[in-house]
């Protein structure tokens, strides 16, 4: 009986402690962080690092959404990595479906999964054809889906692979496009953290702003 009484008493005390801590940690704390995030310098990041063009939001510099070419034979875009999970099931037969930021997630397939082998092969074929190169020139990040499916970046090697096509389609000088790629390449953090990346959305906007017709 004493044990039961002690448990009941402690449980009621627990409920009161929980409710008090909910006010502190579940209401005041997140609202305080949110309040601080309103100050200039933090506000833009807090609301998703949205990129505007002519006052219109065109995307987030942190979210990769693979652009769709109006005419696939005349494709002016640098492309993102493939996305494993998309909301539209009819895209599942397309090796390189259009980007869809409404869902995040990975394929969760193992390297010995036959479906993944097939998908990598199909992506490699499609990209090699698009860029007019042999399959062995296509880098690993181009044919694999990322962990989030929203990877905003590609490797410098994948950007390099796409330069000749973008030059051909946009009519910009090759040196100019290479310059833009270099401008939107970030090295490793502090020279050692993570990997060098090329931000695809910002690069595409810069190519268009430079007069590359899209």
């Amino acid at each position, binding site marked *: 009986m004493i*044990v039961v009484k*002690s*448990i009941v008493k*402690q*449980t009621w*005390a*627990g409920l*009161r*402690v*929980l409710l008090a*801590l909910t006010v502190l*940690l*579940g209401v005041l704390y997140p609202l305080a*962080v*949110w309040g*601080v*995030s309103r100050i200039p*310098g933090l506000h833009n*990041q*807090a*609301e*998703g*690092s949205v990129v505007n063009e002519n006052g219109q*939001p*065109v*995307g*987030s510099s942190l*979210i990769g959404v693979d652009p*769709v*070419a109006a005419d696939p034979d005349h494709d002016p*875009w640098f492309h993102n*990595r493939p996305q494993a999970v998309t909301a539209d099931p009819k895209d599942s037969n397309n090796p390189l479906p*259009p980007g869809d*930021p409404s869902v*995040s997630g*990975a*394929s*969760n*397939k193992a*390297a*010995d999964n036959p479906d993944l082998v097939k998908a990598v*092969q199909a992506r*490699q074929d499609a990209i090699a054809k698009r860029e007019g190169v042999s399959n062995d020139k296509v880098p690993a*990040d181009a044919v*694999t889906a*990322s*962990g989030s499916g*929203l*990877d905003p*970046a*590609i*490797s410098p090697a994948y950007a390099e692979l796409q330069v000749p096509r973008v030059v051909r389609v946009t009519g910009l000088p090759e040196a100019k496009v290479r310059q833009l790629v270099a401008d939107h390449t970030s090295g490793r*953090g*502090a*020279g050692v*953290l*993570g*990997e060098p990346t090329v931000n695809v*959305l910002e690069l595409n906007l810069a190519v268009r702003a430079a007069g590359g017709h*899209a």
Partner: protein
Amino acid sequence: MSDTGAGFVQLGILLVALAVVYRPLGDYMARVFTSKKHLKVERVLYRVVRVNPDSEQRWTTYAAGVLGFSFVSVVVLYLLQRLQSVLPFNFGRGTLDPATSFNTAVSFVTNTNWQSYVPETVMGHTVQMAGLTVQNFVSAAVGLAVAVALVRGFVRAKTDRLGNVWVDIVRGAVRILLPIAFLFAIVLIAFGTVMSLTKGVDVTGPDGVQHTIALAPVASQESIKELGTNGGGILNANSAHPFENPNSWTNLIEIFLILVIPVSLTRTFGTMVGNKRQGTALLAVMGILWAGMLTLIWWAEAHPNGPAALLAGAGMEGKETRFGIPSTALFANSTTGTSTGAVNGAHDSLSGLGGGGALLNMLFSEITPGGVGTGLYSILVFAIIAVFLAGLMVGRTPEYLGKKLGRREITTASIAILAMPTLVLIGSGVALMMKDTAGALGNSGAHGLSEVLYAFASTSNNNGSAFGGITVTSNFFQSTLGVCMLLGRFIPIIAVLCLAGSLASQKRVPESAGTLPTTGPQFVTMLAGTVLLVAALTFVPALALGPIAEALA
């Protein structure tokens, strides 16, 4: 600089940062749990909730407090999800079904943060903040409280009192977790992490296609998610999502947050027991195993294995470009060596040995360096077993930190250690016998077995990371994994508190020539050996059929 070279410098920066805060944070935490003074905000809180902060409790009352608190936490979190449709900031996201609500409530209260739902489509901001964020704090504070109670068992003598459970939980949350989480939430925002109360933002891409990008109050949950070794993402892709973990800087900061408290708690332990070398001995064991497992995972990921990775040219499936292989391996090793379970890449797509390493980290009972509080009490339990084994070899009554390890101590320590393997092996075995399990797997063959094993290891150890290809939304998985989370959390906690009570009631045995020294390399080797031995004896057959078979194929 080469990939590997940069990876090593990054590792060096992490270790230096941990070394810098080790003493101040460890000693600060010791002061938090030994100070007689209450902060003003704490005094107000104790008055409002009508608990006497200056009374101390027996182990049974302390345990009743932990259980009662966790029970009402599950109930409140369950109700919040079941009532979501009437809560503000739900954006039309309706009430969650009973199975998911139960699983999620248990998951966050037990510090597991296993997720069988897609947060950005089903979870509104109110449940995220007032429900899940709160449990991110208090489940970690419960872990701290239990660890501190066990340390007091060694420090105190001839008493039946372990401390006040409410004071320990409140102090852990208010004095340790809250200030660090607040500071790093702001730092994360400065580096690009999102903190928005809106549903999302509509954009028209450069190709003219319209999209909605989901937003959430990420930063406030992200910092405590890592600091409290919780791991539950506010977005589906977890720390692989660019809004949670936007770049290589935030990635390193998040790894630091995951490790900082479990590592520094060994200092807290050393300070509280009055011999800091006792703490460094435990840290050495954690560090050696952590480094060994990092080597395994990193090497495995850098050497592609399996036809898809060989065809692509590198194991980049499920990894983000900005992290690459070294930073993904470092994160995977740290999240599974603690009870975090946040992921910055898809663990299911790790190579056979890489994923096997992540799995093995959990099967070590998460002591490399383990979760907040749970890591310290788990390795102390292993230390008791190690000292006992040494005592058997020389035929002496074993003693550790001036306390005799008798029948009661060894029994409770054994229960604490054996709960997890029992749950993992029985749970996986039952799941494999179910006809529907094959259909729930995302991969077949050896890797499919690893998915099942990983799910039960992750929940029974309160880790929460997943081989995400497995579909766990069936009632069978929701309930069995939920039960594994509960038993995997509370059986060890009750055993550890009983152990603490037993140790505290003993008188102190003076050190003699026959006492096994528990600070030097000899003890470090013995303790690491005990951890390896227990894991090997219980899990080698299962591992051989899963990750090892995959790696050798």
